[in-house]
């Protein structure tokens, strides 16, 4: 049990007061000369068991009454996760709220989990008073000092955003605030549904956070508030591809337009969505993924079909989709376009369910962009190369028939004069760029192009993005990749969930990489095989080996090389063209000059990149949507939480299903009631037992009859 005024518990020794008074009373006896001793002795001989029990019960009732009063005055709380606080008032309360789309799921009280938990948190914080309240604004990832806890309602705390929450980053911000302001005692409240994408418990940042909290001189208590588990049905929709196609033959259009349904279960051809692609003409090919989680109401959707609404540049239409299984994919849904429209935007949406945030998805389409790659290598002649040929192939082979990929090879010297405005990716196999080359790369990186360095043959002391190639290591035997990050970034698994065969790679020759970096793949000696660093706010990748056959099996196996290059190329090409698809919260692009074209009226212009919708940046259309992780239900487990908060003062409170009560419930009334019951019991036990008074004149016999008893 916890108490708001735990120092009142110092009064607990008072429960011994009734016993002490009883003992003193026993000592304070009076001495009386007594004539009728015989009756006293007889009374003592009689059984006194009941009298002893009664005496002990009276003492117990009095003790309980005192204890009940002491506990009531100490203001006990129903939950034990506050711990026994030393001192009745917290100095600083830090509030971290997960506003990711998953938090918009409906709670048992009809509100969203975000609104419900935020309201309950505010009610609880009004009880647990604090000198200072600080809210970590996840939009700007900065602490915001609140005048009172009620100010949370005025802020956008209870409004979900489309961005995946970076809980670790917000906790780091909180730790930084504590370090800078040195409050005496801190209560840190984290409201989250523990979705794995928000927590990223496998990240090494948590270990650093744990250590930094331990090193803090003040007492820091962490409270995690999670919503109640529900099994409500929730469907999400995501557009995986929106491609504008025009001028194709009927056969190519028919082949491209043949919709393919794929799900996690077997599907027959009868499940196909009928569509008749017109011969030629401009079309929009949209691929969708519909996921559903939770218990399915058979009566609501007896046919298993749901309507999907399509909003294309303001024109709405509907079509039904038959769902089969947890994941239903609709590939290349053909939507006729006006031949004159070069670009536009659209939105697909599902009927309302447990979570409204994942029921719609925005997309922007435009004329297909050629995916251009520049390969910097030493033997480049007329745009060709032999040494880097695998790279040319990987970058030049498009993933589908509609995509056009071009790759050209240049030397480092030629690179300076190479036009990079329409280049999506640069693959650098030479030594790290010098100052001139770095200057040429800078605008490319700022624009969002992707840069990937391969380990050069020559050793150089140059550095880029804080990293420097170290010594070359030639392994006696080819070594495999020991660990790699497979849930996001360039080596993540494929859409079906299968992992890339990174573990099958063999590396014979590699270079060490010195500097601060994030390892995406690691060799057995802890050297990074693939690492990421930051240059000018943009990600730069370093591959510590080459594509030569004597360096690694990257070119021989091909799949891993092709996947990571095409992914980097896709990321880079996203910055080109008239449209962009952004994941909310994952980009640091400035949105001050964005204009909202579609989407809910949420967020400020400086933070449009965190809210779903379609925005216009000049002539370019930018569609911002939630990340992939928000469509899954994987959450951090209790063991993982225990791991990242190991050694810290941490507790977790889970909202009770169907309960809208405050997280903190004072139960002093319960103890007051117990005290009253104890007092009533004590009073009943102390009531003198009714006894017939011994009346000397009360004779059962008649008045004296000349020889009998005389009444006195």
């Amino acid at each position, binding site marked *: 049990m916890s108490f708001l005024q735990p120092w009142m518990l110092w009064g607990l020794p008072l429960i011994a007061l009734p016993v002490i008074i009883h003992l003193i*009373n*026993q000592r*304070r*006896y*009076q*001495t*009386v*000369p*007594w*004539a*009728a*001793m*015989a*009756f*006293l*002795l*007889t*009374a*003592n001989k*009689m059984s*006194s068991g009941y*009298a*002893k029990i009664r*005496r002990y019960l009276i003492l117990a009732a009095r003790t309980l009454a005192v204890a009940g009063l002491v506990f009531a005055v100490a203001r006990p709380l129903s939950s034990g996760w506050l711990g026994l606080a030393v001192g009745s008032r917290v100095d600083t309360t830090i509030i971290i709220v997960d506003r990711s789309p998953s938090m918009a799921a409906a709670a048992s009280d009809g509100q969203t989990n975000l609104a419900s938990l935020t309201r309950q948190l505010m009610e609880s914080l009004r009880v647990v008073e604090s000198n200072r309240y600080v809210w970590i604004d996840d939009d700007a990832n900065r602490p915001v000092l609140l005048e009172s806890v009620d100010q949370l309602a005025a802020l956008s705390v209870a409004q979900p955003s489309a961005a995946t929450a970076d809980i670790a980053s917000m906790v780091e911000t909180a730790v930084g605030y504590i370090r800078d302001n040195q409050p005496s005692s801190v209560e840190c409240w984290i409201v989250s549904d523990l979705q794995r994408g928000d927590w990223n418990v496998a990240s090494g940042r948590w270990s650093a956070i744990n250590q930094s909290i331990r090193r803090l001189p003040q007492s820091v208590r962490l409270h995690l508030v999670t919503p109640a588990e529900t099994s409500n049905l929730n469907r999400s929709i995501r557009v995986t591809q929106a491609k504008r196609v025009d001028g194709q033959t009927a056969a190519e259009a028919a082949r491209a337009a043949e919709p393919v349904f794929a799900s996690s279960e077997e599907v027959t051809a009868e499940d196909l969505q009928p569509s008749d692609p017109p011969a030629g003409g401009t079309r929009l090919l949209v691929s969708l993924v519909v996921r559903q989680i939770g218990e399915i109401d058979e009566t609501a959707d007896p046919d298993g079909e749901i309507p999907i609404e399509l909003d294309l540049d303001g024109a709405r239409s509907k079509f039904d989709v038959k769902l089969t299984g947890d994941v239903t994919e609709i590939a290349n849904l053909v939507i006729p376009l006006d031949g004159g429209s070069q670009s536009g935007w659209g939105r697909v949406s599902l009927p309302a369910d447990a979570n409204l945030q994942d029921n719609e998805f925005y997309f922007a389409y435009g004329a297909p962009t050629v995916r251009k790659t520049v390969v910097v290598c030493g033997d480049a002649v007329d745009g060709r190369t032999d040494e880097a040929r695998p790279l040319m192939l990987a970058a030049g082979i498009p993933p589908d028939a509609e995509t056009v990929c071009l790759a050209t090879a240049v030397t480092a010297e030629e690179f300076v004069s190479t036009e990079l405005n329409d280049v999506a990716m640069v693959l650098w196999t030479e030594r790290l760029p010098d100052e001139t080359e770095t200057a040429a790369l800078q605008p490319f990186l700022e624009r969002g192009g992707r840069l990937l360095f391969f380990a050069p043959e020559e050793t150089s002391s140059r550095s880029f993005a804080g990293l420097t190639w170290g010594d070359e290591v030639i392994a006696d035997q080819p070594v495999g990749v020991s660990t790699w990050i497979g849930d996001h970034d360039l080596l993540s698994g494929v859409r079906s969930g299968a992992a890339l065969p990174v573990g099958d790679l063999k590396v014979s020759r590699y270079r060490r990489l010195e500097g601060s970096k994030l390892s995406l793949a690691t060799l057995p000696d802890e050297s990074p095989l693939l690492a990421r660093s930051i240059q000018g706010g943009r990600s730069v990748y370093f591959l510590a080996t080459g594509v030569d056959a004597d360096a690694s099996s990257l070119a021989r196996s091909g799949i891993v090389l092709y996947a990571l290059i095409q992914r980097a190329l896709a990321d880079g090409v996203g910055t080109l063209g008239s449209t962009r698809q952004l994941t909310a919260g994952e980009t640091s692009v400035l949105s001050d000059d964005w204009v909202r074209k579609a989407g809910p009226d949420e967020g400020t212009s400086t933070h449009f990149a965190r809210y779903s919708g379609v925005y216009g940046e000049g002539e370019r259309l930018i569609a911002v949507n939630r990340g992939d992780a928000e469509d899954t239900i994987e959450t951090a487990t209790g063991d993982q939480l225990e791991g990242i908060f190991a050694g810290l003062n941490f507790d977790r409170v889970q909202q009770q299903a169907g309960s809208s009560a405050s997280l903190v419930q004072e139960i002093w009334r319960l103890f007051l009631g117990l005290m009253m019951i104890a007092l009533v019991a004590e009073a009943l036990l102390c009531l*003198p*037992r009714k*006894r*017939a*008074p*011994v*009346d*000397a*004149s009360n*004779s*059962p*016999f008649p008045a*004296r*009859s*000349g*020889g*009998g*008893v*005389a*009444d*006195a």
Partner: protein
Amino acid sequence: MIPQNNQRDFLDMQTLVRLSAIPLFSRRAMLGSVSGMHASPHRGSSVEFAEYRRYVPGDDLRRLDWRAYGRTDRFYVKEFEADTNLRCHLVLDTSGSMNFASGELTKLDYARRLLAAIAHLAVQQGDAVGLTSIAEEITQTIPPRRTPSHLRGLYDVMENTKAGGATRLVDRLHEFAETTRQRSLVVLASDLFVDLEQLRSAIDHLRFAKHDVAIFHLLDRQELDFAFNRPTRFLDMEGDTHVFADPEDVSQRYHTALGNYLRDVQDLMLVSAVDYVRVVTDEDYEGVLRRFLIGRARGGKAPASPGSGDSSKGVHG
């Protein structure tokens, strides 16, 4: 009648004057030395006709009933009841328990008032009164006398009597019954904290000796109510025993034991035909005595037993 210099704290003249109107009767025939107001087992020369008897030579011819001769042709003489005086023995329990008091008066003080008033009434009506004080031994014995000076001496003894020691009431009553041959009115004032079976035998002994027994059973209000509100150490007033008890615990059982005892006492007194008066010491003793005397007066004189001895020649006075 009351000696002028007999002002004692246990004597209230006004009360005695009021009680003087009520005679003190005996329930049984007494054998007095002089003529009195009480029935004698013998025939005497009172005005109350008793019976006829055949004339035998030597009888006083003035007592012949000629009407009876006229009716029966036989000579009969009239026999008349003999009135004699009363011997009243006052027995005062002076054991240690009689010293208990929760109010102004101890049981001994109350007993003194009762017995002193009875003594005064008896002497006033020409009866003899004596006093016996009983504790572990018979501490004082004053034989019955009728004179006022004897009464004064009796008062002196009462006044100087102190309570103390254990109660050996039963043995002393047996002793008293053995030593007191003449029929008497025995008035006992005691708290009767004795074994009732033994008390029964003592009372029967007294009744066998043809004594008229009256018992004033004195109880203090505190002994009845047992109104204590905190743990108390009770010291026995007649010994070294002491009991430490919480009244909350023992009160119920004490009252049960006391109630059983009082009920047994009542039964005993009823069976033994004892003139039993239970007195609580916070009552007005005048009322107690008044009811006692009136009750005796209503009960009337005891009839003369047939074949009794010669009538006593009482002194009328």
